[in-house]
């Protein structure tokens, strides 16, 4: 039953996504700000009382190499998503790098728990459908906070649904097992990023806006495969006028 529901959601969202195509969008395009801030507040509360204590406990009991192995395992399962999206972006070389990584890591790397391929110099190219749409010229659309999962936008949210079709575990695993595995992956990733979360909290003056802008910029960089090197808007570095009002 899950598949038709996803297909329907994807089809319903498609016109909205395509309607957002082309144009220079800014990071503060946020028509749903009141809703987003409410969800941000909810997520921050959940993090504080539930997820961060869980992640801290996980970090205490689970050694770093085990956390890394789990992360490698879940990343390896995403191979079909990365493979298809690299092809859709016209990057067959990267797609076959991903194929090679999957074969090596699933065999020599012990069912994906070790990223041997990276040690052999085959770098990952983790592309999702949100990035593919970005490469095709689709703008991000309005910023959107998802309960628990966090920041996204209309384009990437749509991409997330589409990528679900390419992830084989969604077809074969019982929903309860899939849910439990996703929970472990979520807490494990949070645990691996505790320092980053702490650093973010310490540096942000308006954490909601800081997150919204960082997400926007990071996704722009992801679409450019990390090759942007300088912000799209060169006017960022123009000196403002100094006259007082």
């Amino acid at each position, binding site marked *: 039953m899950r598949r038709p529901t996803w297909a329907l959601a994807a089809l319903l969202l498609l016109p909205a996504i395509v309607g957002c195509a082309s144009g220079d969008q800014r*990071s*503060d395009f946020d028509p749903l700000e009141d809703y987003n801030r409410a969800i941000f507040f909810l997520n921050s509360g959940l993090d504080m009382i539930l997820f961060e204590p869980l992640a801290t406990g996980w970090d205490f009991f689970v050694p*770093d190499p085990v956390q*890394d192995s789990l992360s490698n395992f879940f990343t390896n399962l995403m191979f079909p998503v990365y493979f298809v999206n690299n092809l859709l972006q016209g990057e067959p070389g990267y797609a076959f790098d991903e194929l090679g990584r999957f074969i090596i890591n699933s065999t020599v790397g012990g069912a994906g728990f070790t990223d041997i391929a990276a040690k052999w110099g085959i770098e990952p190219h983790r592309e999702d459908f949100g990035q593919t749409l970005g490469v095709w010229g689709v703008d991000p659309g309005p910023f959107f906070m998802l309960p628990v999962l966090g920041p996204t936008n209309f384009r990437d949210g749509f991409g997330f649904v589409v990528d679900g079709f390419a992830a084989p575990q969604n077809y074969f695993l019982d929903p309860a097992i899939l849910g439990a595995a996703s929970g472990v992956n979520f807490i494990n990733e949070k645990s691996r990023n505790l*320092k980053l979360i*702490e*650093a973010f909290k*310490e*540096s*942000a*003056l*308006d954490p909601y*806006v*800081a997150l*919204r*802008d*960082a997400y926007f*910029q*990071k996704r*722009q*960089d*992801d679409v*450019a495969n*990390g090759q*942007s*090197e*300088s*912000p799209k*808007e*060169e006017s*960022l*570095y123009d*000196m*403002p*006028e*100094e*006259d*007082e*009002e």
Partner: protein
Amino acid sequence: MIAFALFACAAVQEEPPVQRIAELSASVLTTLQDKELSARAKREQFETALKESVDWNIVPKLVLARNLKKFDDGQRERFVASFQQHLVHTYWTNTDSFSLRAIDVQRGREESNGDWSVVTQFQLEGSNSSVVYRMRKDDAGKWMIIDVLVEGVSLVANFRSQFQSLLSSDTPDDVIQQLEEKNAESEAKYREREGE
């Protein structure tokens, strides 16, 4: 590791902005890996190096952008002081807590307005991180940092968004006060972490 940093420095000496970042990287690594220095001394040396490498005349103006006009001279002075403290402290916290092992200064590129972008790779414990420095020549002819892009995220753009949002409802004095409170909070956390 220090030898590596010096090698990195020697390998990319062609252009002055790149050379400047290579020297700064070597200096930061030397400080971080000096076992004789106390945590406090490391932080002070790191902060001095950063204060001398960033153009504090330009960065606050870039982050305030059109909101700069809302600040009078006294407010600008207070803003620069508290923002400098905030940025330097934030950068120290990030560098210290992520166990920096090496900095690979990779290449430089001249931008259309004469600025330079210097691309580096921070080798951290268990991962790498792309860090790009935006450089501009100051009035004395010295190449200074005006922005840092971590994994494609520009700190100038990010802080600009935050100040734009804050100043849409708050006064410059409110924002300066928030910065000062944040700095005091960060300092208290630092003292607690280091057991001071």
